[in-house]
């Protein structure tokens, strides 16, 4: 008998408490982000137009990948680090250059703290953004931070081919290949000259 009335009493008490909590939530700030008007990748519009308690995107968000080719040494470390093979790189020989950033300071290798030297250049740098799983292993492995995640996350395209980001244009590729051929021709000519001189020396030594 006691349990019967206890049931009724507990039922009303817990319903009373529950209803007071639901009612209280009506007076709390709303968390909805009105999406296209409030752009969540820049904290600025959030502060101006959004009244809730959620944060915007921090600076180290892992969004779509971007490559700065002026910092790339074509070492292919990112290609090896990617677990799903979404980066494809081809490279050819080029002149030995020291890398410099915009203001002219030399770029250092992050792990060895020595100056980064570029002996090869890329002729193809394709990232398949559809396959990419935004894990960040390529960005962690790159010695010069050439490849890094931006905080961009909106990338609608009309076909899946358009999602393959190509960072080396056709003229750059042609120029690099031509340069590589020149270097090879030069090296071959040098080698031939050195071989001829050797032969002349040998003949001279024989006589």
């Amino acid at each position: 008998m006691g349990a019967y009335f206890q049931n009724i009493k507990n039922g009303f008490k817990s319903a009373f408490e529950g209803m007071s909590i639901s009612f209280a939530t009506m007076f709390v700030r709303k968390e909805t982000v009105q999406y296209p008007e409030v752009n969540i990748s820049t904290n600025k519009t959030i502060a101006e137009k959004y009244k809730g308690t959620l944060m915007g995107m921090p600076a180290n968000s892992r969004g779509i990948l971007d490559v700065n080719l002026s910092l790339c040494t074509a070492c292919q470390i990112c290609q090896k680090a990617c677990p799903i093979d979404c980066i494809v790189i081809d490279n050819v020989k080029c002149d030995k250059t020291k890398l410099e950033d915009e203001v002219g300071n030399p770029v250092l290798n992050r792990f060895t703290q020595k100056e980064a030297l570029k002996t090869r250049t890329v002729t193809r740098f394709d990232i398949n953004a559809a396959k990419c799983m935004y894990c960040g292993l390529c960005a962690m492995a790159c010695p010069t931070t050439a490849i890094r995640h931006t905080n961009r996350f909106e990338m609608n395209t009309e076909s899946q081919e358009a999602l393959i980001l190509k960072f080396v244009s056709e003229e750059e590729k042609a120029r690099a290949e031509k340069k590589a051929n020149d270097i090879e021709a030069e090296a071959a000519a040098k080698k031939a000259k050195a071989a001829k001189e050797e032969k002349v020396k040998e003949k001279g030594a024989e006589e």
Partner: protein
Amino acid sequence: MEAILISIGLEPIPAKIISMVIICVVVLLAFVTIGGVLTWVERRISGFMQARLGPNRVGPQGVLQWVADGVKLILKEDLIPDGADRKLFAIAPYFCLIGVFGTMVVFPWGKGVIVADLNVGLFYFISITALVVFGVLMAGWSSNNKWSLIGGMRAAAQIVSYEIPVGMGLLVPILISGTLSMGGIMAAQGWLPWDWMVFKSPFTVVSFIIFFIGSLAEANRTPFDLPEAESELVSGYCTEYTGFRYAVFFLSEWANLFVMGGLTTAVFLGGGNLPGVLEDYTILSILVFLAKVSVIIFVVIWLRWTLPRFRIDQLMDMSWKYLLPGAFIAFLGQAIYMLLTQHLPIVQSVVAVIMFLVFVFVLIRFIIRVRVNIREQRIPVNSPASDVL
């Protein structure tokens, strides 16, 4: 309406028919609009209770959302599942619609504003809402889907067994006012809160609570929404319905909410009664009525988004073991109370005022609890103060 038509020169019989048709169309339009607007109201309120906005894009603040939903539903493909009973499948939604729409005949919109003040108004009201059982059961059976069948069976059991507490809860106001007509019951109440039927004695409070819980179950609202338990049966008896047929079910459910709110207000909360000086303004009476109905609808929506749902055997337990004995005790108690105090109207007034003060006391405690909860939710998180660099 009939008088207006006769005065412009029509014969009595065509005038009667035309006036009936016009009133029918007007009430049907009102019914559809109310059903639609209530969906928007529910979605906004549920959003606010979850610290988010509800629909707010279509039209100013989203009020036209239901129009967009209705248009979408009408444009959808009308599927009848293979192996379903075509005739029953087609008719079932309309039984639900008639069950709810038929109550509009005795709906008291204000003092004297009623389509037909039948002298068995309340009895008619309760009986016509029982048609919903047919609709639900036919929908569940004819869908050729085992989940719908289970939903339909549950719904039939639930609605039938909760008819009894609803009826018993309504017996107490009938006892007090001595009449079954809606207009008569409204006239037996006054406009002051302690003249309302609900506060007249502790037994009326108990019968109000029993009636309210029973009407929640009749309308298939949480905590009694087993027939359409979303997380178990995907949509219960209306899983297989698409397009306009689904819109009819949808609409009748939300209008049922309004109808139940209207009944509660008219019978227990003195719907539409005005103080003596303002008696002539019917518009004011309608507004007072609608305001009270809105409060009841808000409480029903509030309950839906707070409480979890019952299981079928617990629901049956509640009806037969808790509500029914409570209703009997309330009825007997009220009868004995009326017998003992029939020559002492002063005692009746004092008891009514005391019940009203008890209600106010509970309300004040509630508001204190709400303020504590608001303060707890406002403890800062992700504030600029924590942006250390």
